[in-house]
């Protein structure tokens, strides 16, 4: 795609095809304004697609195999280790890494920080897809996935923490679909829908905060059911839910930094100047938020250790592993963020974000899998389990990219009314964008 753009091909970013003054058809929009031949050509030239293809070639049959022969056939999930990688990674890691939606939504919509607007849509999309694929992982893992709606409509267990997770993830998914649908409505030119969503934005955002607080916390509280099974250093009688909630804040924020970094490197053609020019500033701003989250997390983690008087465990092998997690996943990114913010080095903040994401993934895997049943024995997931988890992740990436290529997430959609009323103003837009990108983009979208 990059090379096509260099050749002067311009991907669809507006309602009207400039070449013939006609509206783009849906098919044209889906092919980004390229001819099918051009589209296929660029897809085949991209080596990453070949990697994805290889993963699908191996992984999709394995997923089929799982649904024919049962979980026992492809996983090491057992009666002692009921939850394997699909939940340990798919649910417990994907959900905190998707806290970005509510974080940036809050920052922009509730606190009125419109300078973060250029990255808000990416954060919302990251949230939506993360949750959606957490549910996909869940579907792969559940014994009878077709019964997933049971807790919603059929048989209620309202005193269970998982009941809360189910309801909140389901409602929050709807909220996120509504939030992201603005971009879809623009792309489809359904302006009524867009206007409706804009009107209820504040309501959606506030419900996003409530639901996120509760289900991020609830995922932690799920482990309160297993006080004797999770290692004490990863278990806190009183603060488990708040550890999970607070760590989700830097996790979600840093995931946006990581994703935006990958986008900048691989998908710059799709971004408009408003996005690219403000990215470093947004990254450092988000890094500040993440750093505040991380330092809070670090403090409450050690309050947790102190509260349950678990200091003695720090001197054990598990303690060394705990300190490693805290060092690599919390302390190191904190130092990187501090330096990056002080000296305004966005690239260092990006490294900090990468470590934070790794740290959160490690924390969730430690809680759900690695230190789980620490008194019993260590279970290592089946190789097929790794492959299926990777395959679902590859589907996630493919979907993510498919949407980023098309919907106005990284670029702003040029709508007809503006062009029709004041073509001059639109042509001048790039200039004004460079002066005050945040402002310009914001006003144009609204």
């Amino acid at each position: 795609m990059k090379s096509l753009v260099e050749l002067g091909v311009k991907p669809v970013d507006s309602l009207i095809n400039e070449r013939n003054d006609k509206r783009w058809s849906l098919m044209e929009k889906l092919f980004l304004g390229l001819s099918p031949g051009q589209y296929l050509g660029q897809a085949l030239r991209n080596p990453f697609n070949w990697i994805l293809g290889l993963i699908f070639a191996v992984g999709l049959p394995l997923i089929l195999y799982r649904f024919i022969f049962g979980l026992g056939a492809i996983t090491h999930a057992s009666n002692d280790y009921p939850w394997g990688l699909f939940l340990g990674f798919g649910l417990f890691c994907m959900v905190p890494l998707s806290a970005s939606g509510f974080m940036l939504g809050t920052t922009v919509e509730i606190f009125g920080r419109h300078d973060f607007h250029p990255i808000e849509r990416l954060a919302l999309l990251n949230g939506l897809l993360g949750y959606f694929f957490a549910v996909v992982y869940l579907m792969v893992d559940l014994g009878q996935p077709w019964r997933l709606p049971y807790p919603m409509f059929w048989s209620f267990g309202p005193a269970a923490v998982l009941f809360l997770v189910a309801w909140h993830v389901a409602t929050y998914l709807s909220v996120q679909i509504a939030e992201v649908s603005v971009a879809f409505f623009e792309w489809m030119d359904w302006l009524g829908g867009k206007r409706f969503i804009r009107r209820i934005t504040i309501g959606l955002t506030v419900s996003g905060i409530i639901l996120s607080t509760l289900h991020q916390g609830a995922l932690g509280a799920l482990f309160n059911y297993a006080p004797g099974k999770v290692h004490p250093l990863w278990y806190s009688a009183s603060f488990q839910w708040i550890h999970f909630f607070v760590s989700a804040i830097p996790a979600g924020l840093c995931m946006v930094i990581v994703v935006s970094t990958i986008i900048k490197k691989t998908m710059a053609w799709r971004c408009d100047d408003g996005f690219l020019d403000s990215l470093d500033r947004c990254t450092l701003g988000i890094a500040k938020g993440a750093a505040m989250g991380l330092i809070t997390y670090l403090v409450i983690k050690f309050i947790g250790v102190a509260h349950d008087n678990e200091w003695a465990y720090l001197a054990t092998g598990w303690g060394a592993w705990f300190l490693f997690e805290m060092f690599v996943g919390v302390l190191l990114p904190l130092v990187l963020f501090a330096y990056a913010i002080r000296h305004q080095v966005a690239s260092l903040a990006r490294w900090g974000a990468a470590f934070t994401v790794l740290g959160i993934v490690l924390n969730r895997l430690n809680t759900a899998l690695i230190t789980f049943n620490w008194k019993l024995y260590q279970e290592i997931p089946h190789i097929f389990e790794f492959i299926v988890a990777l395959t679902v992740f590859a589907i996630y990436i493919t979907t993510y990219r498919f949407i980023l290529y098309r919907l106005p997430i990284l670029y702003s959609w040029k709508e007809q009314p503006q062009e029709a009323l004041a073509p001059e103003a639109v042509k001048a837009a790039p200039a004004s964008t460079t002066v005050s990108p945040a402002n310009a983009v914001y006003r144009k979208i609204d």
Partner: protein
Amino acid sequence: MSGISRRKFLAASVAVGAATTLGGTKKALAAGSFSGYPNSMGVLVDLTRCIGCRSCEAACNKEQKLPDPNLPFDDMSVFDQTFHHGTQKRRTDESAYTVVNRYTPEGSEPIYRKVQCNHCAEPACLSSCFVNAYTKTKEGAVIYDGSVCVGCRNCMIACPFNVPAYSYSSAFGAVVKKCIFCHETRLKDGLPPACVEICPQEALTFGKRKDLLKIGHQRIQTHPGRYIDRVYGEKELGGTHWMYLSPIPVEEVGFDPRPGNEPIISHVKEFLGVVPMVLAIWPALFTGFHLLAKNQEGHGDHEHDTEHQHDEEGGQQ
């Protein structure tokens, strides 16, 4: 607190308690605690009596119509089986709701322990189930309705005794499987479970839980030196309906010696209490933040003031 208000307060709590009891709730809900149905049944397992004949396993297999075993039930070589690099003994699974394991403490005769669901008074599995598949019956059994089981396996995570098993081999009917105290075929008609009836040694004593406690303590008292002074399950994890008398410390026969006396649900109550508070407070709090921010926006100097990020993050934690 004045006398009157305290009395009112007490009256109110009694009323709430009575409403809960009279309402016939079967669940141990987040509020209040549940001390069990008064006349519910239990089993007292006396490890000094068990001779490891495995007849209970055979009886369970027949009563619950479980799949044929790989080895005959009178094959004692199963006691030598270990799993996961010798760290684990046999456990319950989808084809065996009860198993007997042998423990050989140094310098003493082997001791056998039967493993099955202990039928907690406030079951962890029940409180963790989001489709309410589990029921604690008035007879004392913890039963479950496989037809609503989604297969999330949270109950297996929650069970402090690692009892519920899962039919991993099944692709379309995968549900949780565990001992149900023979509730459907026997207990609800007043019969003891199949394992109790077959036991040649009366290592399993069936009766009302409150009577079993008396019996248990009497055995300890009248046989000095035979038992450790503990009826395991009397208080542990809120009390169980299957309880154990052991001649040696319980950790030597594979029990967690200090599981705590709180039922598992107490560990999540704190969080469950947070939920309505968040639901009630967050909307006003964040709408308030929004109004404050909007007001500030009116003064028009927020655009380049990135320092605010600090306060905002702090505010949300």
